[in-house]
């Protein structure tokens, strides 16, 4: 079980930042439905903080994390964000997972001129001056995946997603892309978050006979979907599915044998072959247990703490404006490879990788861009994406 550590490192709260520490906020769902994903992300951030502190901290000061529980509830996220910024006066916040929670805290960060580091891939169409996005923008995950599928797997797409903003927006992008690139949409289905019976959906997939199921389901639903897909006698050999919200952590819950052979698209896998990653995986397992796995959001959460620390060091201050300025163009040798902060939109340059799930639950990279891709949250560089954003 994870998460015992931070209780010892959660300091007494309330007072002003003491002279020899720098307070940072950590804001994730530690209870409620999103806790299944966010707790590990929090763990990764805590690990990074401990490492940095062990190496002497930043600006000669130790980082002091203030943890808050967003409880899978968006107004609670907003409340806790306010608390971190106004009460604790934290230098920065690492937090959120769902786009909804990010949208909820966004005005709080803008009003209070705070800084949020957001570690999860998302639907794009956003670029707040108060947020750094360390997960993938659509052009670093979805767009290349669709392109690869069209080239390698077939033209008929079945879009399956959870009913909320990320899948809906992602599918809007995919549909535009399919149209531009000669793909065909056979069906688009949404299920409520937390939906657990996919027999009907599987039946619909069967009768629609797509070449590809592009899966933007989130959370628990993936477990039900893949288990039930397999029970219906459909294997990865019969039908390709590509998921963008299923990483190693989720695969543990699904059961490797149920999803073996299916595809995913991310920027990082536990198997990613870099020296930095080898070290990262080792440290993570040493700290949280050999049975734990690392994955893309965990890695993004981990590196964003380092990116902030580097920026602070470079700026020589925790002042938001100075940190933002210093962060522009900042490069970091991350487990996923060399990443760089794009000053224009505060997203990361990231490599894109398509992988296949193995029988041991890990993911084997089968295709990659090799080098980091420039983030393009509004898809401005794609002609077919013209109508998608109103910016």
């Amino acid at each position, binding site marked *: *079980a*994870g*998460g015992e550590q931070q209780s010892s490192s959660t300091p007494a709260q309330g007072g002003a930042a003491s002279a020899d520490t720098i307070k940072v906020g950590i804001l994730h769902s*530690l*209870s*409620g*439905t999103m*806790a*299944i*994903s*966010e*707790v*590990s992300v929090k763990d990764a951030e805590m690990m990074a903080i401990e490492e940095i502190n062990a190496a002497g901290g930043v600006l000669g000061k130790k980082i002091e994390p203030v943890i808050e529980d967003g409880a899978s509830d968006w107004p609670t996220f907003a409340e806790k964000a306010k608390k971190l910024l106004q009460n604790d006066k934290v230098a920065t916040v690492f937090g959120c997972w769902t786009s909804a929670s990010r949208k909820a805290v966004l005005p709080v960060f803008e009003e209070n001129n705070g800084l949020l580091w957001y570690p999860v891939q998302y639907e794009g169409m956003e670029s707040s001056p108060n947020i750094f996005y360390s997960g993938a923008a659509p052009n670093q995950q979805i767009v290349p995946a669709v392109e690869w599928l069209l080239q390698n797997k077939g033209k008929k797409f079945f879009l399956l997603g959870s*009913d909320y903003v990320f899948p809906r927006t992602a599918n809007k992008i995919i549909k535009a892309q399919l149209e531009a690139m000669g793909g065909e949409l056979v069906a688009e*289905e*949404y*299920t*409520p978050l*937390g*939906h*657990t*019976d996919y*027999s*009907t*959906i599987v*039946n*619909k997939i*069967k*009768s629609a006979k797509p070449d590809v199921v592009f899966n933007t389901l989130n959370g*628990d639903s*993936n*477990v*039900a979907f893949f*288990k*039930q897909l*397999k*029970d*219906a*006698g459909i294997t990865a050999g019969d039908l390709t599915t590509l998921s963008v919200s299923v990483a190693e*952590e*989720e695969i*543990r*819950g*699904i*059961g*490797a*044998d149920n999803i073996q052979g299916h595809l995913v698209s991310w920027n990082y896998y536990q198997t990613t072959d870099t020296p930095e990653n080898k070290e990262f995986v080792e440290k993570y397992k040493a700290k949280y247990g050999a049975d734990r796995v690392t994955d893309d959001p965990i890695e993004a959460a981990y590196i964003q703490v380092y990116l902030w620390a580097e920026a602070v060091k470079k700026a020589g201050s925790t002042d938001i404006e100075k940190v933002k300025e210093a962060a522009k163009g900042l490069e970091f040798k991350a487990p996923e490879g060399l990443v760089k902060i794009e000053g224009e939109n505060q997203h990361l340059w990231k490599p894109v990788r398509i992988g296949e799930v193995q029988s041991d639950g890990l993911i084997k990279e089968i295709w990659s861009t090799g080098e980091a891709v420039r983030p393009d949250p509004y898809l401005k560089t794609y002609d077919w994406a013209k109508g998608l954003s109103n910016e």
Partner: protein
Amino acid sequence: METYLLQIFNGISVSSILMLAALGLAVTFGLMKIINMAHGELIMTGAYATYIIQGVFKPLDGSAVFGLYFILAIPGAFLITAAVGYLLEISVIKRLYGRPLDSLLATWGVSLVLQQLARSIFGAPNVDVKSPAWLNGGLVLTEGLQLPYKRLFIIFLAALCILGVYWFLYRTAWGRRIRAVMQNRSMAQSLGINTRMIDSITFALGSGLAGVAGCALTLLGSIGPTLGTGYIVDTFMVVVLGGAGSIIGTVAGAGSIGIGNTAFEFLTNASLGKVIVFLVVIMFLQWKPQGFFTISSRALDE
């Protein structure tokens, strides 16, 4: 054609899952009048119990014996969850008889605690229960019509549980005692029935049934701390639609909601399907305010 046949099968399958999930509630809520908001967490307990039992068998993974863990897991989940229910009864529930609305609040607290407990013990992420090999695959009727063994097994298990509970409640002296205690505790006492014991046993029984449901659910979905939350409204709906206090009603309620859900989901989409089914249930209740199987009473109140 096959699509439609399969869809009918799906309807029955979903009904059987609902039935299994609601059966325990039919006892604790229908019979005992405890609005048990922790029912979902008892289901979760059953799922984690299955996970634990599987863990014990883990060294045998790969051998044929491993698959047998599931046969043990069903009674195991029943007993473990019944034990949790028993503890709950003697610590909390026993103080709430005759205060159904208060029971809602206390069990809500219980559900918060149980969820957090699961998170502390098993970690926040989902865990995986590997289904036994003998339940993999399906009964192939025609090329496009394959009925998964897991779903067939759940239908069988649900039927077995229903029959068992029906027999126990309506055909045995224990069942008679249970029903008597639930209807009039002080009179039952006055007739020499140890109502404290009956209460505990009944609640444990209802909890144990939730555990069996949890065990079955490991075959189909995720096992995490919030596993049960998704079932709470559906199961209450099943019991209420069928008529609280009636086991046959629970079957009917589960059947109509399950089949309705899959049918409307097939015709529209999952969200709309749910909305339509719930709307239909609401409208149905206007017509039959006490559900399918009404228990009439001459008494002035209730």
